[in-house]
């Protein structure tokens, strides 16, 4: 019999918290498997517009697993479409993210009847060099989000456990920190070593959203640069919406099958969206647009400091609601900016 044990974590900090129930904030492993088993596993053309993809899979109350890492290969185009479509009471799951979460948070501040975030399972939400995330600070600081904290490894390996089809995974971190107290993990005594070991529950998002370097029409996808946790999220999620910089021939996929990081079975919809991670970066294609991210962040910070939503509203009206597609958004950014960002990638080698 395994028994719950605890590290000696107590009274080290001044923390006050409510114990979380041991539950999955999304499909259970059994539910996730059932959905997967009942899907067609044949090679099918997965291409559709982003509007169709989002309308088909994004519903109120779901857990959305967000791919990328901070400003890198983030599913920007998909987030814009989700905001246009609307989705309430969302649970967000990710390791580290920046503008994607802030865009959703801003949409919630502007119109909670259209977009709202209820819970977040995460490791980190911020902009690194560009600064803290003002809307996280506003929403979480005021108790408007239920938070569940892990490390970057913790969130990554929770997706990995889900992708492996197992309900939990032992890890060597979180124990002895206050994350042991506040998150959904548990300390047990290892049945083999007799020592304490921390277990994390798998994380199956209802819908994973990822942007990849290239994919064939069936969704077999390549990723160059850091994989972040995109392969794990795509396989863990019950449905995966994928955008890709470029759709490539299946012959190319079959010529170099080792390069496929996400297999077609894990992909439900595919949309070719060049600059689909913009203003984030996509290795081999473009660097991130610090100016645009800074501009949006400063509007969020103005709201946080003054409560005035005007600047934010203008941004959303211009760049999100004023656009039908990501191409419309890119047109507003302009060729010169995109060209500059392309140069700043320094032509990293990718294989298409």
């Amino acid at each position: 019999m395994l028994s719950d044990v605890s590290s000696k974590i107590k009274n080290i900090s001044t923390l006050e918290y409510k114990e979380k129930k041991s539950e999955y904030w999304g499909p259970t492993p059994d539910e996730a498997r059932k959905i997967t088993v009942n899907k067609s596993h044949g090679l099918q053309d997965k291409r559709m517009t982003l509007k169709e993809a989002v309308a088909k899979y994004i519903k109120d109350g779901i857990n959305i697993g967000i791919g990328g890492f901070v400003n890198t290969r983030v599913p920007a185009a998909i987030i814009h479409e989700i905001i246009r479509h609307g989705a309430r009471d969302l649970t967000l799951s990710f390791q580290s993210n920046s503008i994607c979460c802030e865009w959703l948070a801003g949409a919630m501040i502007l119109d909670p009847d259209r977009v709202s975030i209820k819970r977040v399972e995460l490791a980190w939400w911020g902009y690194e060099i560009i600064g803290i995330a003002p809307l996280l600070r506003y929403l979480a600081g005021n108790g408007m989000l239920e938070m569940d904290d892990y490390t970057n490894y913790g969130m990554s390996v929770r997706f990995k456990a889900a992708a492996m089809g197992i309900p939990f995974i032992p890890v060597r971190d979180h124990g002895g920190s206050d994350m042991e107290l506040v998150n959904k993990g548990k300390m047990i005594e290892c049945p083999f070593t007799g020592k304490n070991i921390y277990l994390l529950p798998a994380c199956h998002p209802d819908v994973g959203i990822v942007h990849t370097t290239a994919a064939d029409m069936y969704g077999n996808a390549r990723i160059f640069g850091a994989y972040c946790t995109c392969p794990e999220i795509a396989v863990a999620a019950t449905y995966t919406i994928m955008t890709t910089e470029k759709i490539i021939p299946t012959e190319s996929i079959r010529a170099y099958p080792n390069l496929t990081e996400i297999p077609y079975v894990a992909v439900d919809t595919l949309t070719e969206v060049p600059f689909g991670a913009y203003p984030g970066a996509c290795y081999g294609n473009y660097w991130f647009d610090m100016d645009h991210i800074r501009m949006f962040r400063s509007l969020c910070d103005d709201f946080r400091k003054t409560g005035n939503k005007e600047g934010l509203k203008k941004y959303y009206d211009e760049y999100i609601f004023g656009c039908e597609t990501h191409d419309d958004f890119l047109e507003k950014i302009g060729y010169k900016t995109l060209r500059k960002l392309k140069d700043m990638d320094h032509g990293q080698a990718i294989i298409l």
Partner: protein
Amino acid sequence: MPEYSPFEMIAFTGSRVLEDNKIVFVGTGLPIIAAMHAQLTHAPNLYMIYEAGSLAPILEIGMPLSVGDTRAARKACYLKGLCAVFELTQRGFADYAFIGGAQVDMYGNICSTIEGHNYDKPGIRFPGSGGAGAMAANCEKTIAIMALEKRRFVKKLDFVTSIGFGDGSPDYREKAGVMGSGPYRIITNQALFGFDEETRRMKLLEVRPGVTPEQIQELVDFELIIPSDIKEMAEPTEEDLRLLRDVIDKEGYFLKRVIKK
């Protein structure tokens, strides 16, 4: 001695702490600068892990501004995802964690999650652990950069994000199930701290020339161990400053930052 800024002193001291033939798991900003400086001076065979998935890149197209940056992936030996590099770390290949934080206590536990007592409505919410909690748990030694202020060197943290020596008991880390040996150095611009082997409490090792141990204690809310053989911190030379300013952070993203109170 040439004039240098607090950030330059921290980066230079960070570089001094890193040994050759090791791997340092770096966070954004000063840790990267310190590691680059070490590579260019005394530790040419020191390599970096970046948490988005890269091991031992060659930083030839500019200093990475994010640990997931294309620049941090440039000409790496190995480029995968977060799971891969954190698992290398868990397995014992990462010698140093190089992290930052908002608060530190006498046992080297670090907070980067909230300021305030109530987790569900904290007042100030920070970005969260990111990689720091995992790095502090499983890299062999933890190095942290902190601003030397009483509100940051505190008796009790608001939240333990990155494990240090916990409550100081000898088996705290073992009971926590973590692998690394724990806190090693805390770097500030005016003092370098280590940890006492017996008590696992923070110990003053070096002070900036002209600063007294008493002045350092004044800036720390808990009682420091102050041995009699405190050394003076080495200061960056003209050549060190040239490397920091003209080679490493030539765009001035981190070293030319203005400190906001």
